[in-house]
């Protein structure tokens, strides 16, 4: 067990009696895949790990886990968060969906997570590894007794390549030393700029081609910590029926556009929607664009300050011109 894993375990051990459950990561079906862990017994804390394969944003589970928790006990939920995850958690607090004093947050500074799909594309047969470490501009992968180095762009998740908040912004305990952000806080977003540079027609075609592949599995929505409507989503309501079951681009496009607008000023760019998409639609780019607009109009970023209110959730009749 490496040091970080040990410290995570000890941190939770100290407060375990006050916790109803601990949300962390453990090894999944092979050493490449980590999976969310719901720890209810102190003896299971040994399973907890943290490494660049801990991709999932666990804050998405908080709302339902709190709802299912014993209302008498008012126990806390212990949770591990990376920098990006901590923004989602903050956004949930901002919107009144999670009470700050019902969570015990273990923050973990993060150098980035692996995009398993990119990695498997590079090395199709890779399933068992002995370790992945992230250096300044390289990812070092040890597998089959060999060490291979890859440029970070080839292996890390899209969100990590432009990560401005690698350190958790909200926590009760911090594991290890803070890390330096890969880009400056006001850094440009190359992917968004690239799309913005296209003509309207070309940009439209880009999205039509991308979204045409959508299979409407709604993994993007269900993995999104801020998609809180879940089972009452407009994608599935029958009355009124907003979308038909036709597998047409118009239906798919409408769904993604409505989702984008619902997340305006709320999305914390955890990148889950893009990560989970089985057909590789760069859903996050829509959110990023929307966040640029929100930043410009309201000088606001979601999930930074638990006390501030998302601009589209306030209504001030004295303000005009927006």
């Amino acid at each position, binding site marked *: 067990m490496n040091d970080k894993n040990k410290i995570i375990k000890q941190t939770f051990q100290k407060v375990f009696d006050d916790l109803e459950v601990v949300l962390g990561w453990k090894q*999944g*079906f092979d050493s490449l895949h*980590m999976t969310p862990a719901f720890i209810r017994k102190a003896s299971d804390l040994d399973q907890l790990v943290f490494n660049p394969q801990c991709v999932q944003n666990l804050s998405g589970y908080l709302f339902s886990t709190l709802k299912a928790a014993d209302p008498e006990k008012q126990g806390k939920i212990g949770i591990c968060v990376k920098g990006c995850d901590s923004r989602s958690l903050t956004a949930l607090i901002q919107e009144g969906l999670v009470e700050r004093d019902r969570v015990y947050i273990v923050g973990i500074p993060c150098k980035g997570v692996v995009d398993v*799909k*990119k990695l498997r594309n590079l090395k199709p047969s890779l399933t068992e590894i002995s370790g992945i470490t992230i250096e300044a501009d390289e990812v070092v992968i040890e597998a089959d007794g060999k060490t291979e180095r890859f440029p970070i762009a080839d292996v890390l998740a899209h969100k990590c390549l432009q990560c401005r908040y690698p350190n958790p912004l909200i926590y009760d305990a911090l594991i290890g030393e803070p890390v330096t952000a890969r880009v400056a806080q006001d850094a440009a977003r190359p992917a968004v700029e690239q799309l913005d540079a296209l003509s309207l027609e070309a940009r439209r075609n880009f999205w039509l081609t991308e979204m045409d*592949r959508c299979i409407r599995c709604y993994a993007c929505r269900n993995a999104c910590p801020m998609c809180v409507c879940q*089972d009452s989503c407009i994608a599935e309501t029958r009355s009124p029926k907003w979308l038909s079951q036709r597998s047409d681009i118009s239906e798919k496009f409408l769904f993604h556009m409505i989702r984008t607008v619902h997340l305006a000023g709320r999305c914390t760019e955890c990148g889950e929607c893009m990560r989970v998409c089985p*057909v590789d639609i760069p859903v996050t780019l829509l959110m990023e664009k929307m966040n640029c607009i929100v930043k410009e109009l309201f000088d606001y970023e979601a999930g930074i300050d638990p006390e501030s209110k998302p601009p589209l959730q306030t209504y001030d009749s004295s303000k005009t011109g927006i």
Partner: protein
Amino acid sequence: MTECYYISQNELPAVLETVSGLMDVWVPLKTGTHKTAIEFAPFTPGCRPIFDRQSTSSPKSVLFPQSETLFKFRYLKDESDPTRQTVALTDLEEIRPALVFGLRPCDARGFLVFDKVFLDGIAKDPYYAKRREKTVLATLACKTPDSACFCSSVGSGPGDRQNSDLWIIPIDDGFVIEALTEKGREVLPRFGKPAGESQIKQAEKVQKHIDGLTVGKADLTGAGSEFTRRFTDTEFWRDQVSKCLSCGMCTFNCPTCYCFNITDDAHGLEGERLRSWDSCMFNHYTREASGHNPRPEKYERFRNRVGHKFSYFPERYDGMMACCGCGRCIRNCPVSMDIRQIVRSLKENADV
């Protein structure tokens, strides 16, 4: 081996192009900007089919489209009695013959499950039946199972020839292709030339190697009684599925999941009746017209998925599992749910 043809890797694109003039040809392709997902898509000149790993999505959409128009309808006013309407129906369009080239034995087995449901039951599904009749399945013997694969655990294997029309064995610089059915024999002569002795020998060696592989550790068949015993163990199920996101990724990419919904899509007096994929993982899947939902919770829905695949289906269809062990629901799951582990847990803790 009888009736074997050999085609080199270099010659294959030209052949697929010729065949695509006669029938729809579906091959596994990398799609999208990021080129990490592989799905079955129509062959186009210049495309590069991916044979070295399993496709992300299954080829089921070839025979069972995500959404299909069953028929079109139009309401007509009855001129003699304005209070009455008649309805005119337009049948479905003609279905073109198709070749699916490069699916895996697990994918072919998925269609075996479909056949049971759509062809062998009390009612034959005409939409599926027409496509099935006109589709040639050219299956690639599987040399590259990975850590999510478990076809041997469900009574199949990487060399399982059942349900394929053509059997493709990858050798050094090309493929040896064998016809297994009459449908396969009709298209076989288009694939290169009769295989030579050394090519056949090489193919036999590869086949022998593949037949010797056991993919998946545990035997997951015969879990019906354990499932039944565990059915009411709410705590077990809640615990097993707490991380599930309730998305439809697993079922939509599954070669054996065939659940569908039927909706009418009408504007004014005209419309279409659609059949589209549904997922038992969705909350509204079982929601009744009254508003009552017999499976309101996530664990109930997941339990049903396990039960359907490993208990109810084999009980109904002579022990055949509604799971082909392709591992897509594990490999592509956003949170790495592992259905194998759940079925194993059913068996391991059977006495609890």
